[in-house]
């Protein structure tokens, strides 16, 4: 299993979880896995929507104790 980079965006209002994910993906390699932690419930829909639109691979979305975990693999 590839090593997974955790992006702890809990409590991030600006740039916020999705923008932080987009930024971190730029500095990763194809095949790298990332997991975003967000306390913004909008992330549960916004981030998977963007992942599908751009074509990365969504691995998992789950909520634990008020924190959304969205995992993906960079595909390009």
């Amino acid at each position, binding site marked *: 299993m590839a090593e997974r980079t955790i992006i702890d965006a809990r409590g991030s209002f*600006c740039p916020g979880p999705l923008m932080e994910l987009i930024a971190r993906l730029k500095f990763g390699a194809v095949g790298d896995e990332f997991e975003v932690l967000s306390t913004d419930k909008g992330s549960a829909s916004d981030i998977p929507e963007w992942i599908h639109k751009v074509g990365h691979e969504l691995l998992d979305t789950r909520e634990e104790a008020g924190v959304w975990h969205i995992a993906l693999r960079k595909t390009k």
Partner: protein
Amino acid sequence: MKILIVGGGMGGTILGNNLARRLAPELRAGKVQLTMLSASDKHMYQPGLLYLALGRMTPDELYRDQASLLEPGIDFQVDPVETFELDQNRVKTKSGKTHAYDILVIATGSRPVPEMTPGLAENAETFYTEATAVKMFKRLHAFQGGRVVVAVGVPHKCPMAPLEIIFMLHDYFKDRGIRDKVQLHYTYPIGRVHSLEPVAKWAAPEMDRLGITYETLFNVKQVDGANKVVKSEEGTEAKYDLLITIPAHKGMEVIEKNKLGAGGFIPTDKTKLLMEGRKNVYIIGDTTNIPISKAGSTVHYQAETLGENIAAIVKLGSPVREHDGKVFCFIEVGKDRATYAQFNYTTPPDPKPPTKAVHWFKMAYNKLYWTTARGLL
């Protein structure tokens, strides 16, 4: 104790002055040494670049001699670090000197990298350096009409810049009497017009009112300069006559070369401001990988927290408080109105309607900044 600050930008300067005051007796007694290493003998007021691009400031207004901003107790040297040897608690500089430290603070900042996006540097105007801001001013000055597109890369310094430039361009062309010949089109990387939801909720209808069109979920993939088209990662395109970009940023090259963090951004604990895995290396400002705004106010408040904590380490043996993530950003909404957003790690912003009073306060702050850098405001 040897305290070494690497970087003479806003963060390093505020921190250095803060420490020099707090530790004045220890510095006089020779118990503490405070050294700052910088790549430049000049200090730039970076927010002024926006005004320079629009002909409302001139280059000379952006600079002061760095030494003139610093307290006497600081040993300031223009000699950039080339090698960080963190396991040995020392750095090596361009001139070949070695500096040992007990506490290291890295505040080297970030840099625009439009060249990361194919076609962007060659075909877009931007205002993140003096040279590009002057070039953009000349291009705007000669522009007589057409479609202006604002394209935003991530991560970027100054999260309010995309909104500020689009609203200021509206007034700029209106004042020149050619607003009816200019179409303004704004794009943004996520699903609303700004990362801060309350700001986005206010800004979108304001754009509607001013006749500014916008497209969200637009991440710049490449620019086709021959056909004047900017293409997004999401598969859409925007045609332009004049392309203006808020370019993506990276941390400084020295951070990447020393493998301290991906993209030149160093993994940092957001409340302790300590580099991950280190007990005596602190990171502030754009150099961190903390998901917080890359903005002057961010590092201003971090520097104040860290100044208090490092002084406490010297005097009491341990830091005394955690950082709360405070950010305060002015938002220029054209040539004569402004508002602001203030928030921290736990409290979201609640921006108020723009007023002339806030705009004039921002104009005053453009001058007052030099007192902030000196640690007085």
